[in-house]
């Protein structure tokens, strides 16, 4: 009797989660996978086959955009780690107990505003007649207004700014668990700053680094608004091509194919990244 009640409560507890995973994650993915294998041969005529994938491979534009997106996402992830690590270290180790919460909150504040508004913030700052350019001209540092918008550098900066929080949060939570005695022991045993950082801090923070990198990489590769709004005439982003296929070309089959490929390719990059750095999910993110 009690056992049954226990089972029932477990089922009830898991039901929302199972429904969420099933209806909102698995089912749509299966649908996309199915549509991607449907070849359009005429008006309202479809055949089953891998033709859409063959089209993707045959067209260098799509391939190059996918590689470009992946490459820039890796760059954004690396920069986010570079900038985020000192910030996380300061919050977790150097800041006093009382200011820690406030600092953490300061990192969260940009998230209260939507991506769209933040992208427009960058536009106002960086455009040719924008704040930065005007101030520089006014101060006599440059003679002509300069256009800082519409190029890849701006896209990378905007993306780092958008995703850096997702790097800082996991880093802070792992670093906070680190006992300062470990560092002292390292120094006492004759380790220099670099050795302590390389042999003690980085290995200890690895779960946070891996989790942060995976989240930021996936968010960046899948982002749409920031690259579109800040990017210029030459900056294609793969999600933009998925949108174009679905919306402006009415080509759901190709759009679905691109979606599957983006998911597959980014997963591959994450896997390759873990292999190259000798990490695995079970020893880092899922560590007990």
């Amino acid at each position, binding site marked *: 009797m009690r056992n049954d009640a226990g089972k029932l409560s477990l089922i009830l507890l898991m039901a929302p989660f199972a429904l969420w995973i099933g209806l909102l994650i698995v089912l749509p993915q299966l649908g996309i996978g199915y549509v991607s294998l449907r070849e359009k041969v005429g008006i309202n005529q479809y055949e089953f086959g891998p033709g859409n994938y063959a089209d993707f491979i045959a067209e260098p534009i*799509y391939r190059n955009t996918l590689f470009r997106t992946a490459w820039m996402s890796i760059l954004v992830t690396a920069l986010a780690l570079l900038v985020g690590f000192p910030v996380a270290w300061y919050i977790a180790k150097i800041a006093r107990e009382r200011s820690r919460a406030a600092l953490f909150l300061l990192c969260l504040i940009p998230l209260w505003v939507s991506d769209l508004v933040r992208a427009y913030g960058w536009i106002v700052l960086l455009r040719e*007649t924008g704040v930065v350019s005007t101030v520089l001209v006014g101060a006599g540092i440059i003679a002509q207004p300069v256009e800082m918008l519409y190029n890849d550098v701006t896209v990378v900066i905007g993306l780092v700014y958008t995703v850096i929080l997702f790097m800082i949060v996991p880093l802070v939570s792992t670093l906070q668990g680190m006992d300062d005695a470990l560092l002292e022991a390292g120094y006492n045993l004759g380790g220099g700053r670099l050795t302590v950082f390389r042999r003690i801090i980085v290995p200890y923070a690895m779960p946070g680094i891996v989790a942060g990198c995976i989240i930021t990489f996936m968010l960046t590769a899948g982002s749409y608004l920031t690259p579109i709004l800040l990017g*210029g*005439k030459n900056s*294609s982003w793969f999600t933009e*091509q998925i949108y174009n296929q*679905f*919306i402006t*070309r009415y080509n759901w089959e190709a759009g679905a194919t691109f979606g599957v490929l983006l998911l597959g390719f980014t997963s591959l990059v994450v896997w390759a990244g873990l292999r190259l750095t000798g990490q695995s999910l079970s020893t880092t993110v899922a560590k007990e």
Partner: protein
Amino acid sequence: MRHSIRAILAGTAAVLAAGGAQAETLRLLTWGSYAPEEVIQMFEEANPDIDVEVTYSNNEEMIAKLRATGGTGYDLAQPSHDRIYAAQVEYNIYKPLDLSKIDTSVMTPNLLEGVKANTTLDGEVYAVPHQWGTSGIMANTAEAPDATGWADLCDEKYKGRTSMRLRRTILLGTAYAMGMDPFALYDDTEAYQDMLDKVTEKLIACKDIIKTYWTGGDDLSALMLSGEVIVSETWDSTAFKIYNENQDIVFVPPETGALAWIDTFAIPRGGEADDAAYKWINFVMQPEIVQLMSASTGAIAAVPNGIDLLPEDKRAAVQAAFDEEDIANLKFFANIPPGLEDMEGIALERIKAASN
């Protein structure tokens, strides 16, 4: 006790019945600014039993949304006249209009006939006109006084100061500027592809000249008003709005003819409030509502005196832009055959991805 339960039940039933009678909702799928708050309020006052819900969208998204739901979810849509035929053939998302319920006598006869001819399938009419406007170029006359056509967007002397929207309109405009007639090639896939290849090459070479591709009206307004861009592709309505703020910036109908679109009324196949939809169509075509509507959209209503019903400032802008000859030279978008947009799509992506 039993009495009271019965009373409650009866009361509930009465409320439900009354609620059912007045719970009609008109779900509009239209362009930004095509359903101003003031007009909605007046419509709801005139028809207290109808609630209006508005979703703002654009041509491509309207079709994508209706296709995804099989034509349900909305009761009235407003795609352009060239986006009805192919979408209906391929996706079956609209239902035929009952013209007896629409007061077509107020509509400009040639626009009405044009839309009907474009949207008739198996003898059934699928759309009637609402407002029309054009695409062309906009120039800051203080700095670019001699801009006359699409080709100026790629003119070396404006290097870094021009802009365009990377969609099908610029492909068509550039084709005209290069001496071709895209609408005449619509039915000849090979010739059209040949034309697209030439246009693609031209627009890739043009990437050096343009500053950036604009993506929406607000984006374009900021570029023009800040002076960062002096010649740009534009919708005339956006140019008319800007003219109000800076009278140096005018709409220039390209010498090869401005490209004209007509936004229509079409009823989605799964629409559930046809009567309310017909009421809305007839309501917004009344002269006093047309005035409010045009003030909000900047587009000209498909009624014979549409230009007179524009607000003062926009009428001045139209008169500054168009003369009789320009109006006679308008090129109305022809029906897009199925599959054509896929060809154009790849051309647009080639242009976007090319770097030089």
